[in-house]
């Protein structure tokens, strides 16, 4: 490896491979943050809009050299359920922030008005909102949920299913995304996520 010249400006790519490691047999106290930065996500929601935060941030974290663990629990388990994850939905109901940029073309100012909550209850509205969101994500070249999981898995993310939810919903392992490493308990996750920054979604 070439020596980095004095005054050379370069991005931080993490510790250099040849960085000296503690000598063999030397006592090292319990590592607080040895190795790469670690991030753990808890996905607890199964709405389409709530599937993306962990996928996008997890992907970014992997690209920054972090170790990424994602624990899917309760409704969030739908994200790694192959029978369901291609048909996650977006609802207007209960979302006061729901406004549409395209409405501004009808009348300026409409894009900042939130949708009346009653609209969310109309038949077909959830399907319509879901279709719109999927289209908008596709326009930005964001992969859909199943493809996104494949991307994360290829980049080295670790997926876990929550055992309690798994039992409660009478799921079978064959339905889980192939990269799921296990059906684990809350205690297992606490153990795995030691030293990680935990993000609950």
């Amino acid at each position, binding site marked *: *490896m*070439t020596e*980095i*010249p004095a005054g*050379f*400006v*370069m*991005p931080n*790519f*993490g510790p*250099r*491979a*040849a960085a000296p490691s503690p000598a063999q047999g030397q006592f090292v106290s319990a590592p607080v943050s040895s190795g*790469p930065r670690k991030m753990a996500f808890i996905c607890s929601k199964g709405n389409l809009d709530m599937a993306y935060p962990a996928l*996008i941030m997890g*992907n*970014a974290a*992997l*690209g*920054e*050299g972090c170790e990424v663990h994602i624990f899917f629990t309760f409704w969030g388990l739908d994200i790694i359920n192959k029978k369901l994850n291609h048909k996650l939905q977006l609802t207007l109901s209960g979302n006061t922030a729901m406004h549409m940029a395209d409405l501004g073309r009808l009348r300026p100012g409409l894009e900042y008005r939130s949708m009346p909550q009653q609209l969310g209850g109309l038949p077909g509205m959830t399907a319509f909102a879901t279709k719109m969101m999927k289209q908008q994500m596709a326009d930005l*070249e*964001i*992969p859909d949920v199943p493809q*996104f999981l494949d*991307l994360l898995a*290829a*980049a*080295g993310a670790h997926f876990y299913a929550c055992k309690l939810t798994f039992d409660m919903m009478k799921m079978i392992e064959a339905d889980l995304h192939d990269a799921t490493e296990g059906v684990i308990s809350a205690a297992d996750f606490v153990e795995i996520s030691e030293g990680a920054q935990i993000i609950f979604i």
Partner: protein
Amino acid sequence: MPTNTLKGHTFEVNDEGFLTNRDQWSEELAAELAALVDVELDDAHWAPLRFMRQDSARTGVTPTLRRLQTVGGFDVKELYRLYPGKPVKMMAWLAGLPKPVGCV
């Protein structure tokens, strides 16, 4: 704007160290940069770098990992193996491009 000098190559970079002028880049420089991060560029390493140069010349932006996969046809797992740690950032740096701004 800082100026870097490495083995006879002089090039302008931004505060983070990414090249600001793509015309000051050469394949010889990329090989010298790679040596700084302990990467030896073989054909497998060159393929994504060349794709990034060509693609960014056309679009004006550094391709993201997703674009390397969908447009370039590269295998994500393989890219992480070739450039461990921060693959896209490192490839952009080696290819003399700005760091990618896309989220995915």
